[in-house]
């Protein structure tokens, strides 16, 4: 548990593309499932099966028949090298198996060996290799050093997405009982308790009651954080980290204030108390669907008309791009609103309608920048125009802050660098990978701090927020330099009946 058991890379002015250095990250192995139920609860064998070799190949064959992406991506790569310098994990670890194509080839060489003519008869010629125990371990180690951020897919001339390959590889590993503890334990908790953290209903209730008390103490206003309220207009599904840690909870407070001020009745749910869906990380359609169905069931049970998702990156991907597929159709909801909506879309609409009284100066102690979270940036949209996922959160921030600047163009928008902790890597046993993966983002942030005086970085992803909280200190920065977007909204939002600071005079109501 010593702080750094590895060399923490020093930030430079630029992130240079390094020369490859084989095997630098071969030793990094995330904890494997040791309690069989963490696998079996998800429908996988409890431990590595004896005939893993044949079972793994069977699964690969099955998957390439069910996912066109996998089949096409395994075939189409021409090894042009376009992706080789695009992955944050490669850029700072130099390990060529962390280059997107290097990572893909771990699976591709096995695919070629067993499923292609060239690989069956001329394996050496086309770089096909047998599936061995070493390969299997390489799969485990390196596919758990991919945050499935899709940065490589932006630059691939064929749109090959390493995330798809890494999801398939993890599903194969799971199917033979070689699961990762972090992801599988969490998915088991969601199935059993309803959220990633394993917060039982009473604990959530207790936490929310605490927040309501604070609202009264701080603003003299009864801002509610409703739980399991039937007949509410909106069901808010938010990452359970929003209940649990900072700065996430400040975002939750922000949502509460926005709902309160908008006068829209809302509720959260104890059973759907998690926006995240780690089923995606392990590539398991079945698990992803099971997790997603809780949202549908909660919405039906509570009789809401709209579903809004809180700040969470991969959750927004599952919500925006997959929810309709996994748990739709949502014809029982109000057709006037997209299903689901992102909290930023929700707030942005209210701001545009002028329904929020915002005092930007409340955030004057900060100069802000915005970290585009990978899944939001490259797998989803907000609003009705392409690229709305970049504009809407920025519009929200700019509406509540006076000081906003962007980081370098090549590190934001669709080219954004992952925080380094996405895709099921947000676990202490992968700290070396996480710290290394954060380097490009940290470099861009440091440059923005030095050149533009940035003090804080806002994000709309629970994983990003936790990852930065953890890794900022490795680079000599403060853990509280990362903030929630709705924390900023919450700061600036003046509640209609709010007592002004220092006195208890009642304020006039404007309408």
């Amino acid at each position, binding site marked *: 548990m010593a702080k750094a058991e590895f060399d923490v890379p020093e930030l430079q002015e630029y992130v240079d593309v390094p020369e490859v250095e084989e095997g630098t990250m071969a030793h990094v192995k995330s904890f494997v499932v040791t309690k069989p139920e963490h696998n079996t609860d998800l429908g996988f064998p409890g431990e590595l099966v004896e005939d893993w070799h044949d079972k793994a190949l069977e699964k690969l064959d099955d998957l390439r028949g069910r996912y066109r992406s996998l089949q096409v991506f395994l075939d189409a790569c021409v090894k042009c090298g376009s992706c080789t310098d695009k992955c944050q994990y490669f850029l700072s670890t130099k390990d060529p198996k962390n280059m997107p194509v290097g990572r893909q080839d771990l699976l591709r060489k096995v695919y070629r060996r067993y499923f292609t003519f060239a690989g069956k008869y001329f394996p050496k010629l086309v770089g096909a290799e047998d599936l061995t125990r070493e390969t299997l371990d390489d799969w485990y180690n390196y596919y758990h050093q991919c945050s499935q951020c899709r940065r490589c897919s932006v630059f691939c001339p064929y749109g090959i997405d390493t995330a798809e390959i890494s999801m398939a590889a993890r599903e194969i590993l799971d199917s033979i009982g070689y699961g990762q503890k972090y992801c599988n334990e969490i998915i088991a908790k969601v199935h059993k308790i309803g959220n*990633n*953290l*394993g917060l039982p209903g009473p604990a959530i209730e207790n*936490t929310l009651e605490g927040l309501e008390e604070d609202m009264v103490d701080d603003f003299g206003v009864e801002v509610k954080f409703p739980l399991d309220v039937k007949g509410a207009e909106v069901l808010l599904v938010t990452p359970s980290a929003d209940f649990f840690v900072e700065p996430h909870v400040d975002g939750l407070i922000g949502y509460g204030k926005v709902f309160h001020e908008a006068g829209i009745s809302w509720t959260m749910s104890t059973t759907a108390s998690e926006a995240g869906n780690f089923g995606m990380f392990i590539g398991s359609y079945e698990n992803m669907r099971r997790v997603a169905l809780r949202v549908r069931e909660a919405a039906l049970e509570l009789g809401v008309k709209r579903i809004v998702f809180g700040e969470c990156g991969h959750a927004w991907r599952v919500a925006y791009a997959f929810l309709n597929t996994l748990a739709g159709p949502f014809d029982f909801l109000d057709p006037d609103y997209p299903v689901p909506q992102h909290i930023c879309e929700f707030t942005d609409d209210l701001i545009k309608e002028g329904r929020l009284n915002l005092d930007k100066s409340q955030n004057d102690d900060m100069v802000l920048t915005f970290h585009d979270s990978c899944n939001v940036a490259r797998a989803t949209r907000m609003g009705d125009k392409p690229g709305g996922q970049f504009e809407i959160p920025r519009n929200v921030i700019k509406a509540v802050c006076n000081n906003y600047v962007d980081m370098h163009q090549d590190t934001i928008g669709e080219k954004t660098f992952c925080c380094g902790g996405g895709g099921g890597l*947000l*676990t202490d*046993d992968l700290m070396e990978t996480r710290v290394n993966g954060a380097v490009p983002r940290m470099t861009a942030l440091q440059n923005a701090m030095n050149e533009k005086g940035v003090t804080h970085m806002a994000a709309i992803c629970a994983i990003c927020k936790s990852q930065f909280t953890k890794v900022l200190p490795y680079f000599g920065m403060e853990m509280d330099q990362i903030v929630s977007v709705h924390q900023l909204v919450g700061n600036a939002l003046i509640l209609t009946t709010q007592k002004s600071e220092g006195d208890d005079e009642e304020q006039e109501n404007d309408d």
Partner: protein
Amino acid sequence: MAIEVDGKSYEVDEEGYLVNLDDWVPGIANVMSAEDDLELGDEHWDIINFLREYYQEYQIAPAVRVLTKAVGKKLGKEKGNSKYLYALFPYGPGKQACRYAGLPKPTGCI
């Protein structure tokens, strides 16, 4: 894996968390913290005890805000913040203190 406390062996998982919550004795916290070169004072014990009480009731560690609020109420407002907790438990009050208290590791997007 296991740790030795007062001649008795306690099973811990690969991350050093106690496997059976009911096994917990205060000595475990002392041994674990000694390995981290941390000496537990009363302030630490306040936190550890609170964690254990909260866990008994809610089957989960308290949220950071719940914890800081409780600390603030008990020890004064100036201590009711996460900075204070991090000063006590540098590797994160949630994870480190939970380990000493014999609670399972809180995992998720945190």
